[in-house]
């Protein structure tokens, strides 16, 4: 089967642009989402009953509903409450909120994984709550949660494809557009597969590298 790749080369600028948007929205979503998630997990450590219940509800709603519906809610429903966002902004917001719920769970599990005895020792020697979090819990749990963090980051990279449904010009959106115009679906879809596989595999490889590097000095 002869494959005409000229369609791809003639649109290479657009395709790279789309890939750039994918990368930008992904990285923005990961950074904002992880910071939000960490904040939520830190609050849950100390929160009162009502705060923890509210945070728990937030996490369960986001994890219990499809990402696409959340995006539609923000992008199409937003204007009704004064939230008029451009597709990219709505996409990043959606990705960040979606990611924050998953990151919060990862961080929560991390905090819980540090043995209680070490926290007690910290208390007995006089460390206050935030000192214990900063010096005893965070350093250790960051090592333990590397695989889960990597997983969540990969999930978010794949969810960027969904952004195309609200017309964000990321890789999937751009390429399907090219495909519809030129009917070169085989090439387009091949490129999409290769593109995402590369992204996912590279991230996974990087995550394993980080795990090896950081796990070295933390033999339990």
């Amino acid at each position, binding site marked *: 089967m002869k494959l005409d790749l000229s369609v791809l080369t003639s649109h290479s600028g657009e395709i790279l642009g789309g890939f750039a948007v994918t990368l930008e929205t992904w990285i923005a979503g990961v950074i904002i989402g992880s910071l939000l998630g960490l904040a939520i997990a830190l609050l849950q450590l100390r929160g009162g009953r009502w705060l923890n219940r509210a945070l728990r509800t937030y996490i369960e709603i986001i994890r219990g509903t499809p990402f696409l519906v959340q995006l539609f809610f923000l992008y199409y429903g937003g204007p009704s409450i004064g939230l008029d966002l451009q597709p990219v902004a709505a996409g990043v917001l959606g990705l960040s909120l979606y990611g924050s719920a998953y990151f919060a769970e990862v961080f929560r599990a991390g905090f819980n994984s540090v043995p209680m005895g070490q926290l007690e020792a910290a208390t007995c020697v006089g460390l206050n709550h935030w000192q214990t979090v900063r010096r005893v819990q965070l350093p250790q749990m960051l090592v333990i949660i590397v695989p889960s963090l990597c997983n969540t980051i990969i999930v978010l990279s794949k969810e960027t494809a969904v952004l195309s449904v609200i017309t964000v010009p990321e890789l999937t959106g751009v390429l399907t557009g090219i495909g519809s115009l030129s009917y070169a679906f085989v090439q387009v*879809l091949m490129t999409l597969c290769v593109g995402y596989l590369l992204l996912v595999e590279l991230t996974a490889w990087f995550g394993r590298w980080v795990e090896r590097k950081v796990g070295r000095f933390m033999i339990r």
Partner: protein
Amino acid sequence: METLRSMMQTLPLLLQAAVATILISLVSLCFAFLIGTAVCAVSFSRSRPLRWLGMAHVHFFRGVPLLVQLLMLYYLLPVLGINMSSLTAAIIAVSFCSSAYMAEILRGGFLGIPPGQLEAAHLLGLSGLQTLVRIQMPQALRLTLPSLVNEVLLVIKASSLVSVVGVAELTRTAQNIAASNYRPLETYFLVGVAYFAINSLLSRLGHLGERRLARAHTS
């Protein structure tokens, strides 16, 4: 209250759509389990190319976004001369995507069985098949039940993507409703609640199943 009334009118439609979502998901999950079991079995095979094939399956279907897989099926099949309804294409896509996750879950389950048990089985004279059916499968299922339940919930949510290829499930119906009543906020909120309710129910059932299984084992 005008809002409330118009939303109440959409409930029967949403109920139908919810049933569609659940059916599509469950059918896909069944196929996914079968395919996943096969892929898992292949990953334990003695032939290196077969193992590699299994690994490739998992890497591909977990690496490429479900949306892209859906589009692949939707756009490529006509090109290949196969005529298939969107619904069928959607079910096939979701099945294959989920099968990769199932395969990994099951693999973890099999690996989690203490090897000493297999040794004991072999020493006692049980055949490979007997060991598989009587020793390995029950334990693997018990170990993986929580993950499998989780996969069910994930597929329910993932099914929302099939709306993109026009299948009339919950998300697609929501889009249609929102387009006609100009109340996207309320509509998508309601649909979110619907998904949440479905997932909560299935999650509850899953916990019940886990407890039943645990009780059966400790007796």
